[in-house]
């Protein structure tokens, strides 16, 4: 009788999974429908005039409702506030390594958005660089931030540090 030799079990895969039905709410729905038309919508606080991007239902600082009339369209250009070069893969992020995640302050906005940088050598990435959104072809636009593929450098002088330092 031959003894059966088997490999020991040393590791178990134990995925944790939560499936939600996410409801965006009125304000974020307005933002997402704007994206479908290629518009970047922010929202002006009625108290101090700060512009939040994306739209929000109420001002996080003053707690007051931000009405639809306060929506403003922002340009798809801005300033790179800070960045991180990612060299470690994630199962759910299909980008080719290495890639650059960035915080962008759109012109006219007072809050930053997170996105990725493209068409730029790693050694050229720096704070203050001026950027422009690179969009998907219009026929592929959805109610999604994914309509912007990535941001690309603009051929412009850097923004002065004072213009974005409070957003780092």
């Amino acid at each position: 009788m031959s003894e059966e030799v088997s490999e020991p079990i040393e590791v178990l895969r134990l995925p944790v999974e939560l499936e939600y039905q996410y409801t965006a709410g009125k304000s974020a729905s307005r933002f997402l429908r704007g994206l479908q038309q290629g518009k970047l919508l922010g929202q002006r606080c009625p108290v101090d005039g700060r512009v939040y991007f994306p739209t929000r239902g109420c001002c996080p600082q003053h707690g007051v409702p931000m009405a639809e009339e306060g929506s403003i369209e922002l340009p798809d250009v801005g300033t790179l506030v800070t960045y991180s070069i990612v060299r470690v893969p994630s199962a759910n992020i299909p980008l080719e390594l290495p890639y650059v995640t960035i915080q962008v302050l759109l012109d006219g906005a007072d809050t930053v958005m997170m996105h990725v940088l493209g068409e730029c050598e790693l050694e050229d990435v720096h704070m203050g660089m001026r950027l422009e959104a690179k969009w998907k072809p219009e026929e592929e636009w959805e109610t999604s931030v994914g309509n912007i593929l990535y941001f690309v450098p603009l051929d412009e002088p850097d923004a002065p540090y004072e213009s974005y330092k409070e957003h780092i």
Partner: protein
Amino acid sequence: MSSTDESSLTASHKLEYSYKRSLGPVLSRFFTGIRDRQLLGAKRADGTVMVPPKEYDPDTAAALDELVPVGPGGIVKSWAWVSEPRRQQPKDHPFAYALIQLDGADTPFLHVVDTNDEAAMKTGMRVTATWADEATGAITDITFVPEDAR
């Protein structure tokens, strides 16, 4: 995203962490045992047996490395009937979660009793482990059934 009305968009959203767990020496033997169709418990210094086994005695903190065969039969100490299983639960039809004290063990352990009838469930009933045709070394390789149903 789909639009239910003009005011609010909804979409399904999946949050997932694809964890892998390193089992360590004791649970590695426990799961290897399940794959090889043998349930194992950890023997403590006082002679009692814990299932599932732990690496350390929860009372004395002494390292535990003696594993002994237990089961496959046992006694239901407590149970709860799941009449409408959710997607991620171990069966797609009604079943019982039960605390089962395996023969040779001194602690009960949580597993599934698969009967098609809630009325068949009783505290104190005897159940026995059955294995999937292809055991992979997962806790879901086994299911308990009433002993008199075998």
